[in-house]
């Protein structure tokens, strides 16, 4: 049985190694942050981090994560004590239904880790694979800008 390290906690999971991480997070570990949006790698609702890089948990078999660090949105903070990026999302009201938001947070988190002060074009490009249907895009962009230390209201559309 695979051993997973999620949000710093190592645990053995009772799942076949081919089981996509998303189902293990939600059903075994009670971590509901990552969402099922398509299961086809098309929407980003299930985005988590593996060793600091954004990964789609719906298509990542747990077997490949042995010994590698997985971070989910729960690993960045709690509703009571949100992490800095989550706090930026709260400050900007960056959720309508919120179903896409955990994936957005994780994609943005991986971006900011690689590029701490991304340009507007870099933010938009990085988030391009994550879909939001409520049209919360402007708020999400503002939240990422805020977390990157930019003026959230500025647009800076130059690459």
């Amino acid at each position: 049985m695979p051993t997973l390290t999620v949000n710093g906690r190592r645990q053995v999971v009772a799942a076949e190694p081919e089981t996509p991480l998303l189902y293990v997070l939600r059903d075994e570990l009670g971590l509901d942050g990552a969402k099922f949006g398509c299961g086809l790698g098309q929407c980003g609702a299930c985005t988590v981090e593996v060793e600091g890089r954004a990964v789609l948990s719906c298509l990542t078999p747990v077997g490949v994560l042995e010994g590698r660090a997985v971070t989910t949105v729960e690993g960045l903070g709690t509703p009571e004590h949100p992490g800095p990026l989550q706090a930026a999302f709260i400050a900007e009201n960056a959720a309508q239904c919120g179903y896409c938001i955990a994936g957005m947070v994780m994609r943005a988190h991986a971006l900011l880790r690689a590029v701490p002060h991304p340009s507007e074009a870099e933010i938009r490009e990085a988030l391009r694979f994550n879909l939001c249907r409520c049209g919360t895009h402007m708020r999400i962009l503002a939240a990422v800008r805020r977390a990157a230390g930019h003026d959230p209201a500025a647009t800076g559309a130059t690459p």
Partner: protein
Amino acid sequence: MRRRRIAVGLAGALLLAGAGFGLASWRPALAPGGPGPGETTPERVGRGAVLASLGYCASCHTAQGDRPYAGGRGLATPFGTIYATNITPDPETGLGRWTLAAFTRAMREGVDREGRHLYPAFPYTHYAGLTEADIAALYAFVMTREPVRQAARPNALPFPLNWRPLLAGWKLLFVREPRIPGTTAPADPRRDSEWHRGAYLAEALSHCGACHTPRNSLGAEVKAKPYAGGEADGWWAPPLDRSSPAPLAWSEDALARYLAEWDPQHGGAAGPMRPVVDAHRTVPAGEIRALAAYTASLYGAGPAGSRTGPVDRAVGTDDPALARGATIYAGACATCHESGGGVPYTTASLGHRTTLRAPDPRNLLLVLRDGVAPREHAAGPIMPGFGAALTQGQMRDLAAYLRARFSPDGPWPDLDATIRDLMRDSPGPGARAGAGG
């Protein structure tokens, strides 16, 4: 291997330099001017638009996210990066001062208005075969675009390759002149007019051979091996001749579907072929059919059953690497690729894909690493990249499994080296321990 090729190329180029410089390097500048009366009629512009799509002008002459035809896109070649020029009619930075004569000379001879030789990344060796009427239509189209002021980016080529007169020597060696305007493929009385139209398009305008024909050490197409497979932007460009490893024959219908969008039997384009297929969206179906008719004939009419058909072999679990690959496949690939073609843009099985029959694993690894990005505002396949999810070792296990299961050919000999080459940023086998979260 690549480096050795370049070294040989450089030596050859230097040898040629003397001859080339003396004999043919100098070309006169042509007088500045613009379109003459009647040279940009709507009829010509309209025809030029279709031709420009079939010549894929925009895909090289437009940088990512930039204005169309304003140049700036880099083309990686084994010799260095060559940047496409601005072909909008801006007088300072584009073609604004080019007459039809200058445009025609560039298209046929690879010489710009000022008389400088152009690098063969610009496929004038193919365009030389265009009819005068088609060149005039392309000229009419180009000269009626929105002018954009944007200076060309200098090429990133090492000395002496950045010395353009060398190209004169290159041309002496590799450009067969004179061309017969109208077609570069021999007329074949057994073929119909659609085939001839396709031959003309494929050979001249669409310059299929630029990618699908192998090139020699000096970057010239090997004319003795037309369509035997080549290279584009680091991707393997599969052969379009009898040596194609495609599991199913490419029928005319299948090719027409593939070139227009996607073919359920073979799948769809990725890598540098994507923009080609995208450009076909604005091309009349008849032209696509013609291209398909001609290309289908290149594959040759092999006896039925000469191809193995799609393969889907049971892969034993005694090899631990293959067993690991099977697990990854089951969790990462099967949802879409075992849907029996139910998920849009999947084939009945991966056994249908030529990529798994390729002589080397480059194309597979590039797709696995980067995925297939969604088309902008249009339906088209989407596949996520697995470059971050899989380590180099896992990528190797998966690639080896896919090859073992979906191809009758043996394992790829250079799999490890290619993975190291293509997945430098991905966690290697040693990167696992202690990697932070």
